[in-house]
């Protein structure tokens, strides 16, 4: 006799906790062949604001951690993902209708990409920063620092890899993120949140919203406590309006990318959400 499965309730991930949407709303997530998979939380404007508050509270600690520490914490996520590999493969097969091989390849690449980005944590400042030979008695040095709170519309056509490809690089430099997951494939993002919750990533550093990007993104784009906006997965939204809204507080904006190379791993994805700080130190024998 077959055993009756215990299905999971998929919720939001805000400030290290897994709340339902304060709005009480959910939406049906269907498999590739139209079968019911889950009721995902449909995040509201208030959920988005709560997520920004949580991210703002977390950014100081995360940005203040040593680069070596951030690198280890990020690497730890890859370790945990590896342990849950089978779960993610099954989830992607079901949600995307992908073959076992394709789903496995996506999970493998997601894990390897985490590892790649984790390794950058204590190196990118050496590559992106430098000492400057100014004409005077000064030690002058430029270093990249995290921009702050980054709101991200994750790639919409991918369950796990797209999400990882945009979240990992933003975390490397020490930003805290609020991510709107793929509307159609949100479940892997929430499962990944469970990985994050049991890893060493401080609460609030990553906040995950599921629901309608078209509904949530405008609130994030106009939120004055968001410093940057990654519209990589917003190509099907009115993203120009989002960019215009972001200009009110001069947020840094990455425009949408589409196609197989969207959000390809690049140092540029790390540096896009950093600020160059240049400090002049006076030299004197006195």
């Amino acid at each position, binding site marked *: 006799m077959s055993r009756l499965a215990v299905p999971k309730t998929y919720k939001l991930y805000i400030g290290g906790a897994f709340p339902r949407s304060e709005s009480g709303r959910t939406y049906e997530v269907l498999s590739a062949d139209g079968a019911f998979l889950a009721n995902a939380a449909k995040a509201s404007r208030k959920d988005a604001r709560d997520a920004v508050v949580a991210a703002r509270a977390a950014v100081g600690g995360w940005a203040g951690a040593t680069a070596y520490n951030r690198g280890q914490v990020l690497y730890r996520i890859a370790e945990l993902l590896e342990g849950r590999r089978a779960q993610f493969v099954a989830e992607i097969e079901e949600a995307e209708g992908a073959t076992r091989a394709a789903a496995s390849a996506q999970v493998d690449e997601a894990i390897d990409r985490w590892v*790649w980005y984790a390794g950058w944590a204590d190196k990118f400042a050496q*590559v*992106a920063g*430098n000492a*400057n*030979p*100014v*004409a*005077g008695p*000064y030690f*002058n040095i*430029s270093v990249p620092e995290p*921009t702050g709170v980054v709101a991200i519309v994750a790639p919409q056509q991918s369950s796990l890899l797209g999400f990882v490809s945009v979240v990992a690089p933003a975390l490397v430099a020490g930003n805290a993120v609020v991510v709107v997951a793929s509307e159609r494939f949100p479940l892997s993002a929430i499962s990944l949140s469970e990985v994050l919750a049991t890893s060493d990533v401080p609460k609030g550093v990553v906040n995950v919203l599921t629901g309608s990007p078209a509904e949530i993104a405008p609130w994030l784009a106009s939120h004055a406590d968001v*410093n940057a906006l990654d519209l990589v997965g917003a190509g099907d939204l009115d*993203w*120009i309006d989002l*960019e*215009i809204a*972001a*200009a*009110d*507080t*001069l947020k*840094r*904006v*990455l*425009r949408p*990318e589409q196609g197989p*190379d969207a959000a*390809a*791993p*690049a*140092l*540029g*994805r790390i540096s*896009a959400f950093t*600020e*160059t*700080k*240049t*400090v*002049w*130190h*006076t030299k*004197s024998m006195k």
Partner: protein
Amino acid sequence: MNFLEYAPAPESTAILNLREQYGLFIDGEFVDGRGEPFQTISPATEARIASISNANGADVSDAVAAARRAYDRTWSRMSGRDRGKYLFRIARLVQERARELAVAESLDNGKPIKESRDVDVPLVAAWFFYYAGWADKLDHAGLGANPRALGVAAQVIPWNFPLLMLAWKIAPALAAGNTVVLKPAETTPLTALIFADILQQADLPPGVVNIVTGAGDTGAALVAHEGVDKVAFTGSTAVGRAIAKQIAGTEKKVTLELGGKAANIVFDDAPIDQAIEGIVNGIFFNQGHVCCAGSRLLVQESIHDEVVDRLKARLSTLRLGDPLDKNTDIGAINSREQLDRIRELSDIGVAEGAERWSAPCEIPENGFWYAPTIFTGVQTSSRIARDEIFGPVLSVLTFRTPAEAVAKANNTPYGLSAGIWTDKGSRILAVADQLRAGVIWANTFNRFDPASPFGGYKESGYGREGGRHGLAAYLAPATGVDRAAAAAPKAKSATKGSKR
């Protein structure tokens, strides 16, 4: 005559060879603009200097078309080595004509000749010299091998450092292989037009640099022009915001260098004599018309009275007057409009309860002037502690602990610059780490260098000017795809592109 009085020592204007009227500089030639010409005046005397062409939309289109032709036919095909040699030529010509440029700048802008002569113009030459050497070394700019230029750059610059801002914009753009259409500020077009003459002497190919004069609508037409690939703007946050909205949804890249409200933090162990000079330089340099000016003095409570007393004594020795006089410390406010704004915000400061003190100087009859002014008893919520005044007005606030100093310094939507004064090295490093600002000066202030990146956090804008970072703002990776760095693994298009 006491020891503070000096006989007048005005720099001669005989070195100038000004024209009665100036056209637009398009495709290597001076041409008349189709808008209504305007006059540029000396803010120190309100006397007319010259008549300046006004570029309308059609003129802007001509300039962009000239820049595009020069990009396609000449500049993008030229070797980096030769581009660099043109920039070296320009640097040398600026040095050769340094005195003339300094006099013209002080005449048109109102800044003291000692600043235009010793700061602005030498830095202009340095900027071209620095970026000249980059032109054939772009592989090392940090974007992987064979980075490409962006195309035509639209550059709109402010009136506070007219020629220096021109150099900050044009030098990296040309080194990276872009061509340029530049719009100087309406009140300070003169040195840009003399610079056009320098470009002719350098035999720079026509169209590589085009200069269109006019007011805000000329700049707006330039930024909005569909033939433009890159926008670089220095000016107010309000205009920067409008530009960011205007270019939304386009392929244009943008660099914005906007306003600031910098904290200058003085700890009780600071070297006090240097700190006083640094505070004065921080806010009264260039009449406070400096986006990175140290306009909020955060002084540790225990030394507040001493610092304020010494500041007042020092300010009482500053000489305000003729910008062309070599003894002048404080020149003219650049325009009546700006003077009105400074007066309005100062009056608001008084109305909000702060105490105003102005240095006792004789104000000349004609022209636009504002005496160096200090506000004490300023609340963090007061507008003179929050709004950029862009004038010789210092707001003094206090703090007790380093943590409080950092919190107050960061309590602003701006994030351009900051200063730290203390004898304790470890504290400098820790405080500098925590300040959310793009440029931080420790035991100095308002230092600039072409090798040193400059630019803001938060609403002070984005992108950097100066250094390797400033060069990268005019380049894209070889792929042609935004941001896909050549260093990326498995990014197939990246490897393909780098082989071109």
